[in-house]
């Protein structure tokens, strides 16, 4: 996730770059994504291939986190598919019912695939979102760490005397 310097010339590299863009957009709040895109200039015109829509995905778990799969429950998802003038088609799927969020995910997916847009997307959208995400993660992790129990054993205390 840290490196965005994957070799996008290979199919594998391009896939990794697309997965990274999907993850960052989907895990960031919709309004945060909207605000970084709003700062971008001359965004490509988009043609929607399918009306953006809301549906469900069935969330699965595994017994004990690692064993047999089972169905836990459903999660609303918004999805969009669009084309930009440079040619690439972008597909977006994000948890929640926000179609705009899904369209921005699809737009980012298309831009990652276009040489003229890739670096500008990284600088204007993906890097700031990655920073925001890391900060929120660290924040929660630090709150959790503050509630970690420090056991002190009576036995050792007595032994040291």
């Amino acid at each position, binding site marked *: 996730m840290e490196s965005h310097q994957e070799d996008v010339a290979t199919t594998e590299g391009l896939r990794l770059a697309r997965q990274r863009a999907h993850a960052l957009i989907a895990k960031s709040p919709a309004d945060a994504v909207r605000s970084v895109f709003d700062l971008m200039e001359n965004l490509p015109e988009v043609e929607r291939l399918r009306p953006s829509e809301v549906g469900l995905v069935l969330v699965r778990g595994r017994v004990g986190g690692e064993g047999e799969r089972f169905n836990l429950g459903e999660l609303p998802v918004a999805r969009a598919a669009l084309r930009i003038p440079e040619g690439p*088609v972008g*597909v977006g799927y994000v948890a929640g019912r926000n179609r705009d969020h899904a369209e921005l995910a699809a737009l980012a997916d298309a831009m990652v695939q276009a040489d003229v847009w890739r670096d500008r997307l990284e600088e204007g959208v993906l890097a700031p979102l990655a920073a925001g995400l890391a900060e929120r993660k660290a924040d929660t992790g630090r709150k959790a760490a503050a509630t970690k129990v420090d056991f002190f054993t009576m036995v050792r205390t007595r032994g040291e005397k």
Partner: protein
Amino acid sequence: MIGSLALEGVSPGFANPVADSQRVFRRVLDAMSRPGRLIDLDSGIAAASPHLTAASALALTLLDFETPVFVALDADGEAFANWLRFHCGCPITAEPKAAAYALVLADLLPALDQFYAGDPKYPDRATTLIVVCAALEGGAAVRLEGPGIAETRRIAPAGLPEDFWNQVRADRSAFQLGVDIILTAGDQIIALPRSTRIVPEN
């Protein structure tokens, strides 16, 4: 893992997915409850190939990721399979028996007993065939009877394999098992649910 779709040439689906699919579903219901009647879907979609209009509308209405589809469509096949995966999210299967739906040109129709006829506990799990015909009138005539038909009804779809009606007769002999068939041409359909029997002409 399957590859990414080539999406550059994908044509659009319904303009208003909810209202359009509900309307088409209602028409399919009419067609199924009045077997042999020619029904206009009025689907309003611009299919890439006009002869696939009704088949496309049925796909958008009936298929999703839980319905594996067998596709045999000649030159249009690959583009159409891509279109199906994009709009309906349905997996494509090469195995007729594994298909919940089959979308086939009448010329390329495998023998009906190649498809799944359901099992006695779950006869509803049989394959539903969507057969793209040259036309729904002007072919060899057959007479139908069964639920939804007052006495008998005559239809004459064109372009079906010569042996088709004999196969349908054979398929009906195992009722309640059997395949349901929807014949299409342009934006029109005729339904032949498994409860519909073929009677000798005269």
